[in-house]
């Protein structure tokens, strides 16, 4: 009988406490430098460098609206891939008028790729035989460090701090109680091995590739992934949450994600994808602006 990848490890809490303790022992040592090319008359852009566990130096894009704050904040967490944008592709750059935005480039991504440059594929299985050596432990720490930096800024309204993204957004909201709002789109870390067995698409195909070469490592891989399963992070989340589920009977659809949504401690809305970047994006944007108390949603011109 193989170990499921969503069985909660007995030392789950200790594992993450140890990670946060390591982070707390390291000063963030921020360096903040303006990026004139990305600055506008309504917002100033900055490049930020911070120290995370390792120690490892990570980069982020910060944007601060022109005018008197404090402003609500949007914290964009990294997806699986090398590129992190100032604001996510497909969203309006105009959001920088109304929100402080911060996008973290986790270790291995561009701008945070010295000395470690991640491969895609490659990152999902890097160090996966050992929970303490797994690359995602550092990535989650990078995300928490970014959140600490963001809420330390005087321009940020600490009552309105939204974490937005895929798996790392959930993990950050779980580990950092100063996240007040969460828009979470599950992608990788939920019943991960079981879902990988049913697909040939990357990034989950990385796991199939890995286990074809090392089938004897299956239980160890499952144990490592269990430290990252959404079902264990969800009960730690106190932020008001929008869960963006896939459509229909997908393994990440509303029914499959019901236990995750139901165990989040705060009120949680579940949006079932309409398989339309426009409809899903507009729903998320309107939810965020409403919840963060911003009268006008930052919709791109073609969504208005």
């Amino acid at each position, binding site marked *: 009988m193989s170990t499921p990848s969503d069985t909660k490890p007995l030392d789950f809490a200790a594992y993450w406490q140890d990670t946060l303790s390591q982070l707390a022992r390291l000063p963030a040592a921020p360096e903040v430098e303006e990026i004139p090319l990305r600055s506008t008359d309504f917002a100033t852009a900055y490049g930020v460098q911070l120290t995370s566990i390792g120690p490892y130096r990570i980069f982020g894009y910060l944007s601060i609206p022109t005018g008197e704050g404090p402003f609500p904040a949007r914290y964009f967490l990294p997806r699986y891939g090398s590129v992190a944008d100032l604001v996510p592709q497909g969203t309006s*750059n105009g959001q920088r008028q109304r929100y402080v935005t911060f996008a973290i480039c986790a270790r291995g991504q*561009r701008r945070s790729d010295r000395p470690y440059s991640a491969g*895609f594929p490659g990152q999902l299985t890097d160090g996966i035989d050992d929970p303490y050596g797994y690359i995602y432990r550092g990535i989650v720490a990078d995300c928490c460090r970014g959140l600490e930096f963001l809420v330390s800024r005087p321009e940020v309204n600490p009552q309105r701090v939204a974490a937005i993204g895929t798996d790392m957004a959930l993990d950050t909201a779980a580990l950092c109680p100063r996240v007040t709002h969460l828009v979470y789109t599950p992608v990788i870390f939920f019943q991960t091995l079981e879902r990988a067995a049913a697909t040939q698409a990357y990034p989950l195909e990385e796991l*199939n590739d890995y286990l074809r070469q090392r089938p004897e490592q299956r239980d160890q891989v499952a144990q490592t992934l269990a430290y990252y399963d959404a079902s264990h992070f969800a009960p730690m989340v106190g932020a008001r949450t929008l869960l963006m589920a896939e459509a229909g009977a997908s393994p990440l659809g509303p029914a499959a994600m019901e236990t995750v949504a139901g165990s989040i401690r705060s009120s949680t809305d579940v949006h079932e994808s309409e398989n*339309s970047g426009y409809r899903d994006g507009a729903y998320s944007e309107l939810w965020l602006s409403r919840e963060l108390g911003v009268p006008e949603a930052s919709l791109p*011109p*073609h969504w208005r």
Partner: protein
Amino acid sequence: MTILSNPAEFVSSVKRPADIDAFWEDVMAQTARIPLQLDVTHDPLRSSPQVDVYQVHYTSLDHVRIAGWYARPANHAGQLPGLLVVPGYSMEPLIPKNWAARGYAAFSVAPRGKLRSNGQFNPGYPGLLTHGIVDRNTYTYRGFYMDSCRGVDFLLSRDEVDADRLGVTGHSQGGGLSVVVAALRPEIKVATSGAPFLCGFMDAIDLTDGYPYQEIADYLRLHPDSRQQVTDTVAYFDGISLAPRITCPIIVNIGLQDSTCPPETGYALFRAIGSEDKQLYDYDGYGHDANNAVHTGIIEAFLAQHLEP
């Protein structure tokens, strides 16, 4: 920023340069003089019982080494149709196992600046779109387009690939690159282009405030005196300028609420395509996905009809 109620009525500002054909013939001739210097290595980690995967490297314009993933059915008899898969702007090129499983010899290229092709050239993201943009002879996409076109040379180098059954497919920047490769390489017999980027560059910066096109708006805000030079440069690289060269069957899909690649530019591209065998799928209620959830099946059927895997 003015959005027309009917984007199909949009008139693009793109002016096709009179010497655009000569420009690209010269660039392609320069590229052809550079030996391909192929390196093809089987990748057991990424292979499966159904699909063999190879890491590929070749030399392109400016002697830049380019990487890619080649996937083909593990067990096949006779020659296979070749499919070039071209990548989006900020995504990593995917290993095209799904196409190999459908019976194609599929090559997914990582043009310069992408991971695995960034050892000699790495302007970064954001940044790639405006690198060298004031001069058509130095603009990033001069080499980037050739790196993609050389994927055709790689496929033609394979004994198992049928040279008479070559296609190209891509979405977003990949949709733009599909247009470019189909325009510049007559060996391509069929093309699909989804939510095409790199079409109507200068129109797009007025139609959308999102990245990646926003990179050009950022650049012009800092360098307002360069606007004419930028306009002159990108005219040579615009899919709308290159599309009249396309003669193969092609389908294009766009989303009418696309905030990344505005639908107005998709319509303008479609009108400019030279092929008589062309079809546009314009999906109302969809964004940059351009209704991929449904349209993927249409692409698969269209390619299968023409390439017979």
